[in-house]
């Protein structure tokens, strides 16, 4: 990780770049005419911190609230509750209004088709942000071309192109260049490589690693691909139904997972070793409806360690080791779960 400090750094390396505290977003859904409005608990109390210069991965099934979390952080959706603190300053507060925060944080979207305006040239799309902030047109275009070169697209050939003339990988490089055009400190990558085929994905991942060092970036990397997350992330956060169930160093979480859901996610990855392949699916069925999540631990209907206590008590996200926190009653001392003490001993 980068030991250098960003020129715009305020609180020093020990102060988290972003801390998220109690983030909540419920989407109201109306059922028919005059029906009672119910709430989709898309993000339901998410806390985590993002240290300077690290890459934090967010993983989970579809619909677990990964992308909503990203959009809430970027202010694309208004949060219901919760506090976001960016390098010591609350986002949206007097010292750091949303617009000022957005100069320091940018996002790369998953869908490279819909994230570039089909009527605007590549250089125009990249230069748009700087021009909004008052960079003269010619200089903005020059910088856009330099960024294109930096992300591996030859400016003379690609700058005047339109998005439909580019491949998916090339478009995603343009998206990365656009995110970097405003010189951000935090880049949120929302499934940024998921839609690419494997060889292009590897190139883009390497590019992301390069750029991170070069521009002193901090990444929030959202993905459902655990291999990619293992490759690029320093820490991993596992989400399930709008909650964080496990967070910790990537090697620990993906190597020795403490939460049964993380275990299940890992064993759902097809193994390269034919003897190690499992026949039975590790997780049956779809995640429960986020409108009416299960009581107690939200994972208990699908959990292999389920006990009666799990449907009653809601497990807090407690540390079980240095930097490793998990929300599972089976790992929590005195929780009433039969595995609890043993699990504590092994974890410690």
């Amino acid at each position, binding site marked *: 990780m980068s030991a250098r400090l960003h020129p715009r750094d305020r609180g020093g390396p020990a102060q988290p770049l972003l801390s998220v505290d109690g983030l909540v977003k419920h989407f109201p859904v109306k059922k028919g005419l005059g029906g009672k409005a119910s709430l989709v608990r898309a993000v339901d109390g998410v806390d985590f911190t993002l240290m300077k210069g690290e890459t934090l991965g967010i993983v989970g099934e579809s619909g677990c609230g990964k992308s909503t979390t990203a959009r809430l952080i970027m202010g694309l959706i208004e949060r219901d509750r919760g506090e976001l603190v960016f390098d010591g300053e609350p986002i949206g507060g007097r010292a750091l209004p949303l617009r000022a925060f957005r100069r320091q944080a940018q996002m790369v979207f998953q869908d490279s088709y819909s994230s570039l305006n089909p009527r605007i040239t590549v250089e125009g799309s990249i230069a748009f942000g700087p021009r909004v902030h008052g960079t003269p047109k010619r200089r903005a275009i020059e910088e856009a071309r330099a960024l294109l070169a930096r992300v591996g697209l030859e400016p003379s050939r690609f700058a005047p192109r339109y998005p439909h003339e580019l*491949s998916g990988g090339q478009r995603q490089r343009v998206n990365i260049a656009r995110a970097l055009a405003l010189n951000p400190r935090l880049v949120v990558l929302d499934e940024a490589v998921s839609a690419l085929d494997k060889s292009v994905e590897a190139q883009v991942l390497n590019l992301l690693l390069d750029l991170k060092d070069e521009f002193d970036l901090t990444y929030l990397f959202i993905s459902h691909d655990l291999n990619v997350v293992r490759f690029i992330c320093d820490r991993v956060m596992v989400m399930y139904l709008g909650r964080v169930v496990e967070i910790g160093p990537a090697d620990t979480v993906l190597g020795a997972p403490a939460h049964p859901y993380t275990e299940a996610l890992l064993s759902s990855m097809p193994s390269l070793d034919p003897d190690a392949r499992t026949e039975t699916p590790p997780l049956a069925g779809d995640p429960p409806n986020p409108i009416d999540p299960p009581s107690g631990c939200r994972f208990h209907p699908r959990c292999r360690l389920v006990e009666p206590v799990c449907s009653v008590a809601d497990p807090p996200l407690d540390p079980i080791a240095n930097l490793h926190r998990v929300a599972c009653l089976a790992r929590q001392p005195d929780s009433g779960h039969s595995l609890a003490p043993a699990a504590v001993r092994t974890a410690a």
Partner: protein
Amino acid sequence: MSAPVQTLDAPLGADRTAAAVAPFAASRGFWGNVGRKLLRDPVAMAAAAVILAIIVVAIASPWIAPMDPYRGSMLRRLRPIGTPGYPLGSDELGRDMLSRLMMAGRLSLFMGVTPVIVAFVIGSGVGILAGFVGGWLNTILMRTIDVFFAFPSVLLAIALSGALGAGILNSIVSLTCVFVPQIARVAESVTTQIRSRDYVDAARLSGASALTIVRVQVLGNVLGPIFVYATSLISVSMILASGLSFLGLGVKPPEPEWGLMLNTLRTAIYVQPLVAALPGAAIFIVSISFNLFSDGLRSAMEVKE
């Protein structure tokens, strides 16, 4: 962490050459592409030629019309097509049909196109505003517009025109009122669709104001489809305008106008059916040409995304 970076450089090169092979010598602008596709569309070009010819003839009619379109003759009434001196016959007051049809193009085209242009400006504004802002403003604007959809457009045009009184200006106003809701609805739905695109979110993230986002990112993507729809409304507008004149709510006699001519000649339908049908044929040709042209425009503007 940047150790494995250089290992995959070779396929990266391959990625680039793949694009180099692509058949794009130079990127034309979007409208350049549209123009090129339109030129290759024979139907659209034929329709455009017809429209252009009719417009030219209508504008030049005072100088090229073979006879005075206002001067009648009680002796030479309702002559058939092909009568010497009257290539398209004469009407119920003995006026030359060809001259009158040419002259009538001016008012008919004016009354067909003007309401659509005005409605395009107003309707796009309302629709884009409703679509981009969304929420309660969208609800208020679009539900208000829905009220207009409760009436058939012909009925609405007649009612408004009748309330305002007969006259060219009033019928243009009433036709504009008929088209604003229709265009606004299309504009709203296209804008709502564009607003949810990630590039609009990306523009918001870059700190652009709503006005800048609409101007730079939204307008170019919504005006095209709205324009195509508006072009298709010109034919409807011409027919409605003719209808208003036919009912005596638009142009007043003796001014030549296709709808009005259709009305006054209707009594001669059993005597001289072909002559009586001529103004209708003119309306038909112009409106189908506008429709075919707007179809061509629509397919030329389809964007690969």
